[in-house]
């Protein structure tokens, strides 16, 4: 909750102009379990409905109730939706953190606070607005027990007034949120109005931040990445979902179950075209998914770091016995239990090489809800085409925070169920071998129980191309080399990177996943503030395609931006490149559990650029 130099704040980017329109971040500091979620989402949605690009990030503790929580809403007319370093408007509801929160603000920031906290005494370079929450809530909510919940809506009213958000939009947003609970709706409406009226009557606008209607969100939806992944998996036709609860992945399967109950019940019989099973742990969750994949079903599980570690042995089985399954890893901060409610891109290396022996696994790298929706669909196709576990590497920021998104497009391409033996193929091949590469892509044909075609014995121990047990050195080498050929072939099947080459740029940025949003903003900062043009390659999958090497070759230095300590993707990139290009790879790392912000990237790239030039001059 610290914030950087003034230079980095919306207020002063460009000539310090009043008013600052649609470019601010609001941080609401509360305790969890206090019901502030409704107020925060209503505020977010009001801005969104007003056409202002927004993003919402919830910073919550790893417990259930009573600890400090911060919800951040960023409104940005430029469309930047990454985390912004520093807060422009603080809503200080939590006595426990209020002092520290206020002391961490940059000069000029705004503080809306609960009057008895007397925060205005702390500093004189901020704009303070005191609000007597308890006094205001009492009349609108006679039932004292409910006041805790309703109280928060007051700050929505205050902010609506201060920022100039149209009250009808707030009302509409509130309506959406509580449509099904008319009693709660009425109470909250009253609280909203109480806040608004109080501000109108008592608070004189003394800060520059203003919300104005724009047209930048029309057609968009608001959604979190876990829901997007769930919708994608459902549209991919998943039939077997096995999972074990773990933050931040639980809501992926829970949302999926909810959607499936709605959209995947057989219309005629009312029966389910899917099974969702809560397993006893992650080993079992993946074991079930593999059992189902072996039988020919589209199966998946979702987990986070500790679960990935527990899945190591089974992942190796899937790799070597060549069984499809889709695994969503909604990454959180490790190692071990780490920070379960904070975000990271920290499982890249251990997932790429998950399990003993020579193994490597395809990973998809979504950066937005729309993309994880599409990649969820792609992942099932890839798992069946490649006959191997495929990982979708999401993270807490994507999975649990609220993002604007294009609506999800209907998947027009038919499902790719991979190389399933058919009577025709069998006739054409003459003789079938489960693990025989008949066309050079390393991918053999498979049969599944019940399809009436020849059976085979699936195993994690050594086997020849007819799936017979074998300890022969030659059989082993032929098989493991073929599996590697398959992995190399995967380079041509996975989503290619998105490349933006800028004419004349000598510096490239490589990113992936949620780091994307801060990179987009940082590249503008680099260009606008330092005149540094950068090209950009956004990785969307491992193994990499040829675009990566071409990109690195075309630039003097490439900065791999990621959210871990050890430069995990940079390591994979380095190992993949022609070694002569290795010196061009640089690392920009951020790993404190908060989503990376543009300023951090900009500062670090400029620092390294300066060093590189100094080096060159020497």
């Amino acid at each position, binding site marked *: 909750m610290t914030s950087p130099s003034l230079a980095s704040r919306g207020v002063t980017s460009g000539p310090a102009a009043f008013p600052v329109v649609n470019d601010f971040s609001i941080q609401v500091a509360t305790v969890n379990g206090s019901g502030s979620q409704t107020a925060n989402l209503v505020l977010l949605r009001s801005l969104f409905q007003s056409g202002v690009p927004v993003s919402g990030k919830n910073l919550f503790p790893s417990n259930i109730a009573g600890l400090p929580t911060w919800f951040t809403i960023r409104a940005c007319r430029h469309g930047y939706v990454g985390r912004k370093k520093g807060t422009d408007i603080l809503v200080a509801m939590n006595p426990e953190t209020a002092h520290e929160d206020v002391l961490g603000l940059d000069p000029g920031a705004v503080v809306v606070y609960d009057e008895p906290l007397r925060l205005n005494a702390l500093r004189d370079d901020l704009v303070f607005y005191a609000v007597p929450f308890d006094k205001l809530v009492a009349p609108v909510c006679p039932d004292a027990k409910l006041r805790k919940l309703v109280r928060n809506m007051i700050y929505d009213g205050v902010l609506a007034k201060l920022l100039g958000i149209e009250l009808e939009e707030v009302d509409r947003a509130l309506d959406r949120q509580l449509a099904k609970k008319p009693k709660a709706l009425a109470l909250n409406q009253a609280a909203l109005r109480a806040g608004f009226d109080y501000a109108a009557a008592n608070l004189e606008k003394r800060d520059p931040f203003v919300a104005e209607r724009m047209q930048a969100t029309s057609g968009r939806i608001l959604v979190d990445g876990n829901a997007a992944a769930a919708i994608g998996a459902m549209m991919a036709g*998943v039939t077997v979902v096995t999972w074990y609860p773990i933050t931040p992945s639980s809501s992926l399967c829970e949302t999926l179950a909810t959607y499936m109950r709605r959209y995947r019940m057989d219309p005629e019989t009312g029966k389910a075209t899917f099974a969702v099973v809560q397993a006893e742990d992650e*080993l079992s969750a993946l074991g079930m998914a593999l*059992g189902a994949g072996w039988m020919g079903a589209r199966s998946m599980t979702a987990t986070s770091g500790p679960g990935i570690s527990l899945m190591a042995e089974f992942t190796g089985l899937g790799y070597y016995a060549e069984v499809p399954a889709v695994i969503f890893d909604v990454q959180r901060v490790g190692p071990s239990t780490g920070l379960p409610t904070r975000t990271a891109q920290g499982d890249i290396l251990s997932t790429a090489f998950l399990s003993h022996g020579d193994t490597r696994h395809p990973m998809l790298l979504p950066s937005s809800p729309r993309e994880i929706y599409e990649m969820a669909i792609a992942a099932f196709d890839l798992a069946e085409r490649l006959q191997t576990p495929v990982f979708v590497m999401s993270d807490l920021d994507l999975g649990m925070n609220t993002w604007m998104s294009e609506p999800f497009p*209907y998947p027009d391409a038919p*499902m790719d169920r991979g190389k399933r033996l058919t009577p025709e193929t069998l006739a054409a091949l003459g003789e079938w071998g489960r693990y025989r590469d008949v066309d050079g892509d390393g991918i053999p044909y498979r049969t599944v129980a019940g399809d009436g075609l020849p059976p085979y014995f699936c195993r*994690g121990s050594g086997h020849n191309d007819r799936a017979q047990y074998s300890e022969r050195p030659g059989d082993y080498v032929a098989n493991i080399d073929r599996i590697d050929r398959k992995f190399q072939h995967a380079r041509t099947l996975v989503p290619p990177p998105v490349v933006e080459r800028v004419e004349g740029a000598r510096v490239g940025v490589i990113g992936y996943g949620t780091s994307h949003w801060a990179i987009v903003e940082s590249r503008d900062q680099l260009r606008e503030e330092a005149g540094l043009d950068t090209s950009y390659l956004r990785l969307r999958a491992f193994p990499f395609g040829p675009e990566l090497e071409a990109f690195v070759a075309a630039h003097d230095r490439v900065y791999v931006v990621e959210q871990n300590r050890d430069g995990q993707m940079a390591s994979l990139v380095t190992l993949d490149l022609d070694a002569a290009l290795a010196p061009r790879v640089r690392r920009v790392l951020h790993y404190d559990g908060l989503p990376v912000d543009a300023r951090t990237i900009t500062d670090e790239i400029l620092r390294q650029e300066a060093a590189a030039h100094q080096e060159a001059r020497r």
Partner: protein
Amino acid sequence: MTTTSSSAPAPGRKVNRIGLELAAYRGGKSTLCAGCGHNAISERIVEACYEMGVESERVIKLSGIGCSSKSPAYFLGQAHGFNAVHGRMPSVATGATLANHRMLAMGVSGDGDTGAIGIGQFVHLMRRNVPMIYIVENNGCYGLTKGQLSPTADLGSTLKNGVVNDLPPVDLCALAMDLGASFVARSFSGDKKQMLSLLKAAIAHRGTAMLDILSPCVTFNDHEGSTKSYSYVKDHEEPLEEISFVPFFEEISIDYEPGTVRAVTLHDGSKLLLKKLAGDYDPGNKAMARRVIHESAARGEFPTGLIYVDPTRPDFLALLNLVDQPLAELPAGRTRPPREALDAINDALR
């Protein structure tokens, strides 16, 4: 559960009701030690499937890792098999049945595979009553890693090197029953007749049929001092009843005095006829089963036979309200919601 269409036997060769010879049910050549109890069990599985007229194509064989877990390669060569990882066959089997509920799933495990590393998955499989046959080839030791004690080794049983087991055994039958398995039996690899009847009954049952089969390891655990040696088990097994199995496609032709035989009707209509031996054992009575297991264990005996059965407990798949067609076989048209569904979802998020 997967016994289907019959065809007239061709004259001259001995075939079962679907026209297959016994040989059609065999698998690869065993690489287990000569005399290993596990081999006898594989033979009984072959016979049971033959006699029941099981279609191999509708069977899936699953196992973990161990000598016992190798056996699926040695029976039913025409069935798909999955030799998974150590102790984790239950989850793989659960997933497989979810994907295709029409298959007859047969799992084979060892006492190490199930009782040690796999006990967690075992517990949860039993609790779910996943429809499958779960065979533990129980030799009280780890055969494949050369004879270490397993969790089913009895208190006081000794290893070849003289090490004495000082921990109480896990009684897999008691555990399975308490957790919710709907068919629990114990047998002995040397008792062909009993094992065969139990296997056929397990095929006819719907739900988890857990068979704990004492199966001596002739290489590492067949010496004096071991309570899992062939001779010790033979001397200490205590059949609860005399079992005959009458498949659904045959008439009961056995004569018995009224009152001496209890008949249990299984899911597919087959019947188990239990001729009373000691006492009036009722495998439908969990409390009695529990008492008998623990009392015999205290006496150092192994009760064998059908210990517990509940043909009515719904199996795990029944709880899931699945469509009739196996999930794995659903066409895209039934698994990808229509455009309108996605439109509605998008709209709700606007």
